[in-house]
């Protein structure tokens, strides 16, 4: 709707400025505007996203070793190989469990931060920025800081220094999988990197809740605190919550950077993408099997997303408000 409004406002102005140039009018046409704005993105999307996806699909039916232009058709053999491969199936299971943990945790932490920051009377902008800043940090850089300085296995690593004050021995956080301390490192890095962004989404949603609702609730006798939060705030955040959960879920399945950098050359704690990378796409160059795995993963992400959308009513946000 806003475009129509803009056009009506803008067109007379343009005509006044240069009535003799038909090019202006052409540029003002909504079709041209549409393609001008979406064109570059569509081209990028097609070239860098859709074409590779289709090519992957094609590769997954071929024996493609050390080449991406294969000629030996093998039917579903690559799919059989990947789906009977314990490591790949195992990584799908592990990461469903990981997603089941990290999604609610990040959701709760971001919401908590948003509520706290939203309550602030002073320095609100400061804290908002402080919590949002990690979003601007690259996953790789954060992984290196976590690995080399905070959770370094040697005695002068930050965490080991702290443990040393209490007389606890050094822990090789990322090296020794037993007990699995590496989850502490991964989860803390991920929370630090992600919560800020979702916090901003929640703050925006919180500020959108009309004050009258709270006033009405107070008049009706709702106690401030938990009761108000449970029956007013939370239902009002439904649309945002759904979107956040959806984004988090996709992000959990797409996890790669911090796992790849923190856990080098392990056989555990591998998200499906890292598993695919080690198994097929990286040094082994078995692009057929790798593509089959990627297709399986894509289908899985789509299925989970659709199911979740159905379950939580994504896209029906307007009505449920």
């Amino acid at each position: 709707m806003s475009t129509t409004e803009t056009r009506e406002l803008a067109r007379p102005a343009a005509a006044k400025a240069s009535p003799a140039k038909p090019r202006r009018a052409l540029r003002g046409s909504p079709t041209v505007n549409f393609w001008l704005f979406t064109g570059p993105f569509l081209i990028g999307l097609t070239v860098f996203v859709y074409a590779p996806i289709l090519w992957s699909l094609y590769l997954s039916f071929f024996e493609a070793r050390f080449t991406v232009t294969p000629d030996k058709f093998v039917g579903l053999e690559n799919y059989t190989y990947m789906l009977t491969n314990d490591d790949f199936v195992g990584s799908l299971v592990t990461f469903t469990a990981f997603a089941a943990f990290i999604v609610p945790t990040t959701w709760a932490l971001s919401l908590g931060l948003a509520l706290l920051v939203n309550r602030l009377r002073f320095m609100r902008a400061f804290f908002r920025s402080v919590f949002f800043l990690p979003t601007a940090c690259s996953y790789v850089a954060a992984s290196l800081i976590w690995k080399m300085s905070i959770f370094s296995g040697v005695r002068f690593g930050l965490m080991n220094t702290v443990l040393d004050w209490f007389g606890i021995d050094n822990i090789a956080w990322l090296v020794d999988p037993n007990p699995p301390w590496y989850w502490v490192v991964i989860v803390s890095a991920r929370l630090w990197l992600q919560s800020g962004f979702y916090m901003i989404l929640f703050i925006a949603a919180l500020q959108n809740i009309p004050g009258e609702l709270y006033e009405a609730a107070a008049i009706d006798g709702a106690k401030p605190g938990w009761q108000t939060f449970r029956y007013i705030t939370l239902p009002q955040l439904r649309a945002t919550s759904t979107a956040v959960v959806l984004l988090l879920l996709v992000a959990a399945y797409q996890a790669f950077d911090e796992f790849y950098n923190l856990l080098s050359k392990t056989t555990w704690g591998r998200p499906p993408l890292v598993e695919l990378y080690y198994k097929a796409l990286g040094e082994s160059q078995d692009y057929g099997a790798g593509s089959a795995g990627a297709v399986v993963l894509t289908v899985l992400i789509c299925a989970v997303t659709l199911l979740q959308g159905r379950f939580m009513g994504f896209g029906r946000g307007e009505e449920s408000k």
Partner: protein
Amino acid sequence: MSAMSSNWDRRSILRAAAGLSAAGALTACGGNNGRSGGAGSGTNLTQFFHAYGEAGTEQAIKKYAKAYDKANVTTQWITSADFESKLFATLLTDSAPDLFEFHPQIQMIKSGQVADLTDIIEPVKSEFNPADIKSHTVDGKIYGVRMIDDPQFFFYRKSMLEKAKVEVPTSLDELMEAAAKLTTGKVKGLYLGDDLHSVIDTMIWSAGADHLDEKNQIAYHTPGVIEGIKKMRKLFTSGDLLLGAPTASWDPSSLNQGLCAIQFCGMWAMPAIQAALGDDWGVFPFPKTIDSGKPSVYNGGWSMFVNAKSENVEAAKAYVKWLWIDQKEYQEDWATSYGFHIPPRTSLAQTATKLKSGNAAEGVKLFNEFGHFDNIGWTQAMRTSLEDVFANAVRKDMDPEKALDKADEAVDRELKKLFG
């Protein structure tokens, strides 16, 4: 939202900017092939090197390239952890390097990725270490020119061993005992890297086994290797290993800074260790894994290969011949001026004075006496399978037998594809 009411000028500027940046991004993708173009006599060549740790190495490689006047050679210097994946991925594309350093692996030959270099090596074949020729030969054709041989073994702090009254270990059991005795509050006994991958090969050889036999069948799955894996597991859980150190095991910093008393590293590290520790260090081979085994040393190294699909195969071959066969001065500079490496050419190895005394001479002795060279049939995917064995059965507590069975499956799949 303010844009709604603003005039057309601002919008068209924005639009032009968006269009420009999109166009810029698209062209940047096409142009990013690492070639600088311009100067030189027409032919442009790109070479890939992994980032050597020693100061001056990158400058040296670029200096040699600059001295060549028949082509314009550009070097890409790639972080060593990413080298294999970047190389393999790039070789499939148009921006593939014309020549690159790597290790001899048969899958690159079977898939037609590396060019036959027999004609440039044949005339000087007798000058090379025969093992270096053999490890690059398939069906009588030679596919790579060895630049440097890099024996890998243990480095130890003499003073620390003396203080703890520990003799230089001659068996894996003794090594484990030594690691325990050398571990104090601030120093760990032994450093093998976080993943222990650098000792997989030597552990197998010292157990009297090998990766593949002469018929290219699995030869690593033996009772001796299983015993070795169990010992490695014990070592890993003993608390005597340095784990999570800031530098990888190819970097001697952990030994130099006193974080560990013994470290598995390579000959290249000798100048840096000498500078940091003076004469307070010595070397020894990977000791026998089991009683019937023998000590071993991994004779790794790097070779130059030519990309068979390059548009400039002949020019790339000419450059390889010029630098790594004709320019003996540069070859010696490369082998001994930065890290220490053994020149694969016998004549150079004999005249390299820096390798004639002290620990360097000892390193050369270990190389000749206990060294095992790469088996060209042992590919990267097979390497990964054994790395998984170490991850599963040494760092995790999977049954070694089961872990090896799993590796057998993956290695057999590879063997079947390569040798039928």
